[in-house]
Each structure stands twice: as C-alpha cells, then as structure tokens.
C-alpha cells in the first residue's frame, strides 16, 4: 500500500501535472547550510532522500532526516509526518555507515564503484601507492591525496631508486606495522620488505603515463564525491592533517637522498598543492609547509632536510599526527636557523645517519611521545645532535623517564622543572592562601594542597589547553566561584577582583560595589561604601553584565 503510493508519488512528480498532490517547498537544513527542495507532499521519505542524495552527491544510507525531533523512516509519507509547505527538516550526514569504514582501498571514495574499479587497475605499483596512502593513516580519502599521489607518481618517474629506498626504510615499515586500523597492513608491509625487485618493476610500469592517469581518474572521482558531501568535511579535516604529516615525512628521505635542486623542486611540488587546496580547518597545519618550502627555495636543503626529518619523525613515529606539537617543533626549529647551521654542517654528509636516527626513534617510542607532546624541556634542546648520537638518545630517554617519575612523586618539584609556560592561574595560590579571610576559606584550605598537587600533575603530564582548564579551576581556591562570577559579569581585571573580594571578606555584592567604585586602581578606596548609589549609577565601567 505504502509502496503503491510511493510509486504513484514518484510518477506524479515526474509528470508534474497531478493537481491533487501539491508540490511543496521543504527546506533541508544541515549544520553547514540550508537548501530547498520541491517535491510532492505525498511523496515518501525515501524519495525525498533520493533527491537529497542526488543534489549532495552522497549515499542515501548516510542521510538521516529529522523533523520535530523524530527520525524520518523511509516508508513515511511527508504529509503524514506533518511536513508542509515551507517547513524545515534537519539533515545529518553520517560520516560512517554503521559498522563499516570505507574499505582497505583507502584511495577510493565512499561509493562502491570506486573500490571495484581500483581493484583490477591496481597492480603492485598502485598497491604500493595505496600502502603509502594507508601508512598516513587515511581512514578516508581526500582531494589532497589525489594530488599528492600524482606528485608521488612524478617522483617515481624521476627517481625510482630513492622512492624504493623510501619504501624500504625502517620508518615506513614501522609505520605500516604500527597502524592498528587495518590488520591487513602488517602482512602487506612485510611483503614490502621482501619485494624490492618487484617494487622496482612496479615503478617502471608506473612510469607508464597511461597507468598513472587511470589511477588518478579513479581516485579523483571518488574524492570529489566525498568532497561534495556535507558531512564529508568532518572526515576530511583530520585526514588532511594526516596527509600533511605524510607529505613532510615523505619529503625527508627524498630530499636527503636527492640533493639540491631536484629536492627543492620536489618540496615545491609537494607542498604547493597542499597549500592551495581547500582544508579551511587546518590553516595551522599548512603553515609549517610554507616555512619548509621557503627554506628549500632559499637553497638550504640541508636545513630543510633536518627540519623535515624532525617534523616527520614525531609525526610518523607516534603514528598520530599531532599537528600542533609538530608545528611547535617546526616553528621552534625555524626560529633557530643560526644555531642549526652549525649543527647541520655536522649533519651534511649523512643521510644514512638520518636514517639511523629515524631507526632509533622508531625503536624508542618513549622518546617520541614526549617529543610529540611538546614538552617544554624538549623545546629548549637542539634536537639534531641528539637524534644522530645514539648515546645521547639513550641518555635523553633516561632523563625523560626520570622526569616523569619525579613529577609524579614530588609534584612540588614540577614547577621548578618546567619553568615558564605554566598557566596564568598559578599566581593565585600565594594570594588566596594569604587572604583566606572569607567564611568559606577555612573549609577550603585543607583541600588547597591537594588541588595544587593535582594541578602540578596535570601540568606535568599534558601541555594541552585541557590542563590549563583544571589548573585554573583548582588554584582559585575559596574565591574561585566568586571570581568567575565577577569575570562573567564583565570585570576583566583578575587582580582587582581578587583584591576586592578579599577586602570585602568574600561578599560578592560588596566586592562588586568596591570594583565599581574604583575600576582602575587595585586597592579599593576607604570611602567606597559611602557612595554606593553614585557608584552604581555611574555606569560606563564595562559592567554591562552581558553574558551568554
């Protein structure tokens, strides 16, 4: 019955002449935008979804339509659900189908045909490329990948030996072994090790431009499909940063082995498509590429090599593209060109040394994790001599372990160790401790020590902004709540707030009046209480209290 009506609804829409079923305009709202659809009010939700999927280029299975809080089922009729002319329906595009991530051929797009197409066209060569792609932990593809692979294909033509070396390098294989996302990676990577000859053959076959074109065509189609999907943005953002890491990682040994000019061209080629393409959510990730490219163009290939290798090492070693820390690392490096010049002179003759360094890093994840976490200690150390000197590496690992144990055992020591870069809120403890005059002070005092302990632990263990949140939470002590109230009311001067609270003995209303009386000076005047109405009516003191 419903099906018959559905068919009838479809045919009515096609003919467009049926008067008894009106055409209505329905708005479909996604988190990104809002689009309008015209269709018969008697049509089914399934039909509606088909229309939507045609316009948005994504699979109907991934569409979820919601109206007045109810999820619309395929067999529902629009008018029965109360969807009338001019109503708005909400749409969520799932990024994953339940239980299935897009398949092992990660080069393919979300639709099935790409997977099938790439199967027959994939030989060893494309398989190699596919593995490279997977090595970057691409759960889903992105437009960047097609460009990147195109570039890589050109590279293969130009310098097959270096690419083979790239594939053979312990890091690449380590990466492949590390990825838990797909169990098939491990056997494939072992195949990688055992078949350099076939890889060479594959390289030659890849040089066949026809083969390249075929590959790229297949990928581009699927990738464009993903790009057009509203929900596809979600997948692309982390993936693009993955690609960034892969790019830089791939750059490192390539640049190292190729030398000056070809290397700079490589970098230019590699970096520019990424700089141009669309991921708006990771401008910060792209920023590292630019200094990298600039460096290479300046002809300082050795510097770029070191920069790239250092950038790549944390990225590939940890396996999780920690863009921020990598970026910190990179900016740190880029800020010390002078210091590095001397270091790179030591490094100049040794791409093999770099490889060894990569190898050591791979074997020592403990070294990499604090590196990737961007520990402040690490930032201050020149990395390059450490990377290439195995004994230094060992010592560093021991230091790092020791520091972690120390910070756990003796939290008070952590402030001394980590130095600047601690969150702002830590200034408060002496003040709040000294000023504990409020009624609530006594009950909170004993917990202060515990809170400080936790805060130091949080600082030592993570540098993310997450830690700064609990730390500011923990250290405000008894006046914490009131301080926050004052802040949301618009009193931005933290010190003044605290002084006012202390002077007012924890009474927030009196503190506000004090603050109104003297907004600039930290010490409240003695006669603040004598003119409260005047102070309140004064206004213009940033106390709009506009808060949301």
């Amino acid at each position, binding site marked *: 019955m419903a099906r018959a009506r559905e068919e009838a609804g479809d045919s009515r829409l096609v003919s467009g002449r049926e008067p008894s079923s009106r055409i209505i305009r329905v708005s479909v709202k996604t988190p990104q935008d809002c689009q309008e659809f015209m269709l018969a009010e008697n049509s089914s939700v399934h039909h509606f979804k088909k229309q939507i999927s045609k316009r948005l280029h994504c699979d109907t299975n991934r569409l979820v339509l919601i109206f007045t809080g109810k999820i619309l089922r395929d067999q529902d009729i629009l008018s029965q659900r109360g969807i009338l002319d001019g109503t708005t329906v909400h749409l969520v595009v799932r990024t994953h189908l339940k239980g299935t991530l897009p398949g092992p051929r990660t080069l393919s797009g979300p639709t099935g045909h790409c997977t099938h197409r790439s199967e027959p066209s994939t030989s060893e060569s494309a398989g190699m490329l596919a593995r490279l792609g997977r090595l970057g932990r691409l759960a889903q593809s992105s437009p960047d990948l097609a460009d990147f692979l195109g570039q890589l294909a050109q590279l293969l033509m130009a310098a097959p030996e270096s690419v083979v070396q790239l594939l053979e390098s312990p890091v690449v294989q380590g990466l492949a072994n590390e990825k838990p996302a797909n169990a098939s990676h491990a056997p494939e990577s072992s195949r990688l090790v055992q078949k350099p000859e076939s890889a060479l053959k594959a390289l030659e076959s890849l040089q066949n431009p026809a083969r390249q074109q075929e590959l790229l065509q297949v990928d581009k189609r699927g990738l464009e499909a993903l790009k057009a999907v509203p929900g596809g943005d979600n997948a692309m953002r982390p993936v693009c940063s993955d690609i960034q890491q892969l790019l830089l990682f791939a750059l490192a040994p390539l640049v190292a082995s190729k030398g000056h000019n070809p290397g700079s061209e490589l970098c230019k080629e590699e970096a520019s498509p990424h700089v141009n393409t669309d991921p708006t959510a990771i401008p910060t990730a792209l920023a590292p590429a630019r200094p990298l490219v600039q460096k290479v163009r300046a002809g300082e290939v050795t510097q770029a090599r070191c920069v790239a290798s250092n950038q790549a090492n944390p990225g590939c070693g940890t396996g999780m593209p920690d863009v921020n820390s990598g970026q910190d690392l990179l900016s740190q490096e880029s800020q010390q060109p002078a210091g590095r010049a001397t270091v790179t002179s030591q490094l100049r003759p040794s791409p093999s040394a770099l490889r060894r360094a990569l190898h050591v890093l791979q074997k020592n994840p403990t070294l990499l994790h604090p590196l990737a976490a961007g520990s402040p200690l690490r930032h201050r150390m020149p990395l390059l001599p450490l990377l290439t000197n195995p004994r230094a590496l060992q010592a560093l690992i021991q230091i790092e372990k020791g520091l972690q144990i120390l910070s756990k055992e003796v939290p008070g020591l952590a402030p001394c160790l980590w130095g600047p870069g601690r969150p702002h809120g830590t200034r408060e403890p002496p003040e709040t401790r000294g000023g504990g005059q409020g009624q609530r002070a006594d009950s909170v005092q004993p917990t202060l020590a515990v809170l400080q302990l936790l805060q130091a632990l949080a600082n030592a263990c993570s540098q993310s902004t997450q830690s700064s949140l609990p730390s500011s939470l923990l250290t405000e002590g008894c006046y914490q*709540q009131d301080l926050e109230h004052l802040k949301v009311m618009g009193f931005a001067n933290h010190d003044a707030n605290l002084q006012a609270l202390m002077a007012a003995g924890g009474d927030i209303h009196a503190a506000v009046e004090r603050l109104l009386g003297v907004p600039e000076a930290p010490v409240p005047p003695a006669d603040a209480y004598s003119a409260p109405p005047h102070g309140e009516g004064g206004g213009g003191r940033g106390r*709009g209290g506009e808060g949301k």
Partner: protein
Amino acid sequence: MEPPNLYPVKLYVYDLSKGLARRLSPIMLGKQLEGIWHTSIVVHKDEFYFGSSGISSCPPGGTLLGPPDSVVDVGSTEVTEELFQEYLSSLGESLFRREAYDVFENNCNTFTNEVAQFLTGRKIPSYITDLPSEILSTPFGQALRPFLVSIQIQPPGGSPVGRPNGQS
C-alpha cells in the same frame, strides 16, 4: 517495528548576574531585565553549551555556575546519542567554531536555540533570545557595546566536544 526511544530534552537557564541584573537594570538600562541568561541543553544525561572556547559538555549542572536557576522542558527527541554527537561535531566545525563566538550575535543562546530546534523542532523561550537586542536598544547598552564585544563567556567545568585533532 518497535517504537523508537524518546529522550527528554531540557533547557537549563542560568542567570549570570545572580540577581544583580534584576536589581540594577532599571537604573542602568532604563528597563527591567530579569537576568543575564546563559543557557545549555541537557539531553542524553549530558549538558551541552557553547562558549568562547567552542562547544563543551559536562554532567548536568556541572559547570562552575552550579545548578540552573530554572529548567525549561523543551520536549522529546528520537535522535540518538551517536547521531547527536555527529551533529555536534558538524556544528562545531561550521556555525559554532570557537572563533565564531560573538556575545551578541552568536552566543550560547543562539547555539541552544539551534540545537533545540534540531532535537525537537521547538525554539527556546523568546525572553532569552531577545536579550541582546533588549540591551542594545538602550542608549546605555549602545554606549557599552565596544566594551561588551570583547567579553568571552566560558563557564568552566566542561570539556570540548567534537573538535578535530584535539584543538579546543
């Protein structure tokens, strides 16, 4: 087919001024405001709100503001937790990125209104969404606007929702 689960959706309303707005608004603004409202949506046993560091979530009543001043029943939804999280991630990358926070135009109540409509089709009470225009329509509000524009409201106590690569 079994009937789908219905999840209740509540709106938690907090007065950021803790009663001061009600006392002082007649003097300062020339009109009576009952409060400076911060709102959040509570669904699937979690509280979700938008602040200057993006969309955050916490256990209900778990921000520093404490328990809400009032609770409004928005309705019920069939949207599952998983679907809701996907939706929030999408929002957090488009309309409600952390940089998109604007204390007048795109604030916590804008977010709550958006989410309430997604979940139930209903909007939140108008006295909440009308607040910015109420304030800005007074000469005092206009005068204060440059100061207020840079205000960043972010009730502490929550954790970020759906931001890629751990940015927050």
